[in-house]
């Protein structure tokens, strides 16, 4: 069983995370699309912290004898998913970045060739 103090602590941490994410989105420091996963995480933790029977049932479901561990397992899993997602985002960004850099190189070269034409240009 979770102690009342621990429950309150986890609950307030999750609430703080939720508010922080919302504030970052409000200030446009975090795009809405990336905030969704974080909000979902914060809400899930809030829900678990608020409802002890839920934690117990979750723990029993996956065979964890000490219910609070279920919280950590769930949190760890969520963090893993989030990181994997971010790696995929980085992959996409670097591809777009590569394409832009290649285009810059090609355009820059063409511009220089136009400004200083060379004689031999088959």
């Amino acid at each position, binding site marked *: 069983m979770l102690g009342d103090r621990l429950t309150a602590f986890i609950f307030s941490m999750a609430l703080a995370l939720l508010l922080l994410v919302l504030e970052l989105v409000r200030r446009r420091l975090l795009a809405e699309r990336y905030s969704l996963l974080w909000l979902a995480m914060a809400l899930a933790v809030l829900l678990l912290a608020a409802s002890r029977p839920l934690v117990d049932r979750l723990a029993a479901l996956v065979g964890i004898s000490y219910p609070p561990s279920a919280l950590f397992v769930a949190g760890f899993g969520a963090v893993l998913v989030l990181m994997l997602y971010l790696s995929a985002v980085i992959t996409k960004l670097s*591809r777009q970045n*590569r*394409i832009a*850099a*290649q285009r*810059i*190189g*090609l355009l*820059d*070269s063409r511009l*220089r*060739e136009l400004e200083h034409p*060379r004689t*031999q*240009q*088959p």
Partner: protein
Amino acid sequence: MSILPPNQRLLVIVPAFNEEASLARVIAELRAALPGVRVVVINDGSHDATPQVAHDAGAQVINLPYNLGIGAAMQTGFILADEEGFDFAVQVDGDGQHDAREIGRLLQPLIAGTADVVVGSRYLEGPGYVSSTMRRTGIRILAACITVLTGQRCTDATSGFRAANRRAIKLCAMYYPPDYPEPESLVVFRKLGIRAREVPVSMRARTGGKSSITAARSGYYMLKVLLAIGVMMLRRAPRLREV
């Protein structure tokens, strides 16, 4: 160049990362061997005088704003070749390993229409520069994997001395493996029905500068390439719409 059919144009692509020591000679040899042929140096974010050296030697220079890796650099050259309608493109490394006078041997199968990509192999026949045992073993292992996967004989999987025809240029402009492209691209070619074959060439020790693949990185190189090739086999075909 005499061996080119009339009205057919060849682009020589030289990827270069910090190759100021060897580049002038490489370009001079290219221009001597292939008078009138356009040489473009893809300066992959070098920190040294590579772009000036290349320009002074008479090459067109494409400066990438930062280091993208050899695959992305080569792809830039293929995009140029594709957009300007070149019939053939040849890759010659900037370190002086490749002999410009052998480009004709690479082009022959393309001109004859018996291949779409030709790879110069240093292991098909005897002489020339022999690299370290470690590196040779690594190349052998990769070559064996690629031979098994593609069903085509491959002896020199990492050779960057290659020629491509119009069809292969178009494909490489659309998709080219980013980091260490040589072995991986052979598998891509096979999947897309691009006919690749090897011809024997001799290679020299690099005339200056350093290889981007140090001893410490070789292990990582092997792993990454094997992973890339393995994953490649699981795909239906590379996603061509990504560019």
